[in-house]
């Protein structure tokens, strides 16, 4: 219901392409925004603090044919323990719940992030060094 309204609002806006990929939650900037305003666009990489929808949990995930590892905090995403190390995980790699998949730096602390799911990494969704927010999908797992 709420999501429907969102979609309706979006259609009001000019110059805004609503790219609702089936496997990805829609961008978060909802949209009581006037049409003549610069429309914020959600970009997974690039400018740090652009908004992304936190995965709106259950309803969406249930329709997915894959799982996601989402960020449990706000910070900077690193795929490897140090600049010259190999990444924790690569596409095609098998993981279990306890596998460390990346580091998120928050308030100068390096936090090792565990997969919490089991499966095979199919895609990394965030560039090394990019900012991530709470709930942002980091990896796709099959």
């Amino acid at each position, binding site marked *: *219901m709420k999501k429907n*309204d969102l979609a309706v609002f979006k259609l009001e806006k000019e110059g805004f392409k609503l790219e609702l990929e089936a496997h990805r939650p829609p961008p978060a*900037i*909802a949209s009581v*925004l006037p049409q003549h305003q610069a429309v914020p666009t959600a970009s997974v990489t690039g400018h740090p603090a652009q*908004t992304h929808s936190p995965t709106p949990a259950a309803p969406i995930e249930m329709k997915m044919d894959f799982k996601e590892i989402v960020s449990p905090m*706000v*910070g900077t995403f690193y795929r490897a323990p140090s600049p010259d190390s190999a990444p924790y995980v690569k596409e095609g790699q098998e993981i279990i719940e306890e596998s460390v998949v990346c580091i998120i730096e928050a308030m100068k602390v390096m936090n090792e992030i565990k997969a919490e799911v089991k499966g095979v990494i199919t895609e990394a969704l965030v560039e090394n060094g990019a900012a991530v927010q709470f709930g942002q999908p980091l990896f796709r797992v099959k």
Partner: protein
Amino acid sequence: MFNKILIANRGEIALRIIRACKELGVPTVAVYSEADVDSLHVQLADESVCIGRPPSSDSYLKIDRIISAAEISDVDAIHPGYGFLAENAHFAEICASCNIKFIGPSPAAIRLMGDKSAAREQAIKSGVPVSPGSEGAVETEHEALKVAKQIGYPVMIKAIAGGGGRGMREAHNDVSLVQGFYAARGEAEKAFGNGGVYIEKLIDRPHHIEFQVIGDSHGRLAHLGERDCSIQRRNQKIVEECPSPLMDRKLRKLMGDCSVTLAQAVGYENAGTMEFLVDRHGDFYFMEMNTRIQVEHPVTEEVYGCDLVKEQILIAGGAHLSEHIASAQPRSHAIECRINAEDPANNFQPSSGTIDLYYAPGGRGVRVDSHVYSKYTVPPYYDSMIAKLICVGSSRGSAIRRMTRALSEYLISGIKTTIPFQAEIMQNPDFIRGEFDTSFVEKMTDLKRLELRL
């Protein structure tokens, strides 16, 4: 000035701060919980960062996430609004250690004035009258009984870390004192993680009057008169006004000077509020200080012709106190109604849900501060306030008539609101005459219950 400001809050105050920043030309970053993804503060800020799940303990109270959001979005200042982390000295300290300006007073001032019994001692030292009461915390039942005997019943037991009416009990005799002592301690422990309480003389049917103070980092400090917040339901303000019908120029000067003296004594910077009880004889007693912007700040803005939130930001950026604020005089009358998503016909139960149709009143002398709109869903996780309606008039009577008119136009369908209750207050003869005290709402509802029974 700042390059970018993060707003560590939600709802109308987040929007209020974004509006001030836009008018100052400063970009903003909103933080939000998953429940607030459709909220206007997220939509109107230049950037936004999701910081956690809906409960505020998982989002708006998460200091590490907010600081991380500030770091990844590269802001140089944080405005805390009111509530959440606004009076958290630890948060202010962390901001400072991260080289982010906390828009508010120093951690030391927050800590000192946030401790009610320390604030009271500070007031006594500064020659500001306080109501008779215990010196600091009362630790035992025995001590409580002794203090009560000394100052005489009725007394009020209050949480040292308190606020928002929690951890408070009235006592009219030894029995209710002992009961209240334990009840207040339990409630305070639960609400604030600190069970300390103190005891004060209960002022009979007082006005709740607070003074707005504001100071810059160069030692200049001024007050902007008073707000009368006596219209409360269970210690929650629901109607506020400026000036107070109780006040005259002489009393305003006296209380204003006390407020400035006390703020200066603690080296206070930025906006703050001194709360007093004032009895019918004009005797006043300092109660506590709120070291942040208040919900009801707009009535002061309208009457004194200033923008307190912009001033907060400018002062935090090192500016001198604006000359027009230092010399402002009251020049009209303003009333604010806090529109809550609560059902007044059903004991003010919170009424979250989706708003079908939202139509806000307009026209001369009407200001609306709100984050809601048609089809907005009021989440159940936070405070029930969904709007503030502020009406200004050349006199108190004209402000009341304007408020009556504006409330009659205000349409919020789909959820219940306090609008009918406030419309009733505006028509109450005692309120219209300005004859009320903090027991007004209780009396009004008691009378109504009585009438219904007859």
